[in-house]
């Protein structure tokens, strides 16, 4: 799997966002061991230091913990993950509202559109 990076934004931030998405969607389950830096670097075809930086950032946000001997793990604290999901959902909602407003939609229009298309959207939605 590769990501199409936007080269205008720092790559470590884009990697961080991707890792967060993996945690929210459960692709990386709570307590799971995170693959080695080198392997992640190979998977995403990026510099190992960049991966390292994104993972450090993940730790700083309490989404991962590293153990000196055993490696790095996704947090088992479901609260933190829930929090992340809430933040993420809120941000997306805000994005949607901003777009809807720019199209001169009012709240009722926007909500009814969401209801109307909710079921037509097939498959899983990835963030």
């Amino acid at each position, binding site marked *: 799997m590769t990501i199409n990076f936007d080269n205008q934004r720092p*790559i470590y931030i884009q990697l961080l966002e991707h890792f967060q998405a993996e945690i929210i969607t459960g692709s990386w389950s709570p307590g799971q061991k995170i693959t080695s830096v080198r392997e992640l670097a190979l998977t995403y075809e990026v510099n190992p230091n960049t991966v390292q930086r994104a993972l450090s950032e993940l730790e700083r946000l309490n989404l991962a913990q590293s153990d000196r001997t055993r490696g790095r793990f996704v947090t088992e604290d479901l609260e933190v993950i829930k929090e992340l999901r809430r933040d993420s959902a809120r941000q997306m909602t805000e994005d949607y509202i901003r777009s809807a407003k720019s199209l001169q939609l009012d709240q009722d229009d926007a909500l009814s559109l969401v209801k109307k298309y909710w079921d037509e959207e097939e498959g899983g939605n990835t963030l």
Partner: protein
Amino acid sequence: MSLIELKDLSKNYGHVRALDRLNLNLDGGRIVGLAGPNGSGKTTLLRILGAFDAAYSGEVRIDGHKPGLETRSIVSYLPDKTALSDWMTANQAIAIYKNFFADFDEGRAREMLDFFKLEGSQKLSQMSKGMREKVQIMLVMSRDAKIYLLDEPISGVDPASRKTILRGIISQASENSLVLLSTHLIQDIEPIVDEIVFLDYGRVVLHEQADKMRAERGQSLNEAFEEIFA
């Protein structure tokens, strides 16, 4: 002390000034891109670092030493042309490297040979340009060197091979080693470098961390390159 320290490095070809009082320090544990227009001095700089050109002025220190006997055992060099004879097979080339470089890891070479889908018994003369490039990368990256100097490792090969070669470089460079790779194809190396050095007229015009540059300029390395050299 940095792994590579250059002070007022100059080099002339006749009346042409290839390097002009160039100053640069590079540390280990990085993948550094060396970019610049044709004739900006990329190959000249790499050749001096690789001890293939001793006719320069200024100071060059590689792990504290002048380029020469001491540095050759810690520097692995990929030239922009094939240094191997056409009649050789990849296996023969591996045997030569194993014979002459104490840090050569044959297991790693075999792994990379598989990874690149190359046949060890095939002669170089029967290989495509991309395959020959892969053989050279395989040899160079199978050394457990402190410094890898790669002159245009991905130019002249097809896009699919470029990806494979870059993956090969990422997978082999150890945590503490320095990879310095020159290229004019910045888009392709963009995600894998963590530092970029722009050369122009034999001088360093920009030396910055890639992500810092993206954050501050809101530009890709390629866009910055085009802006600087427009």
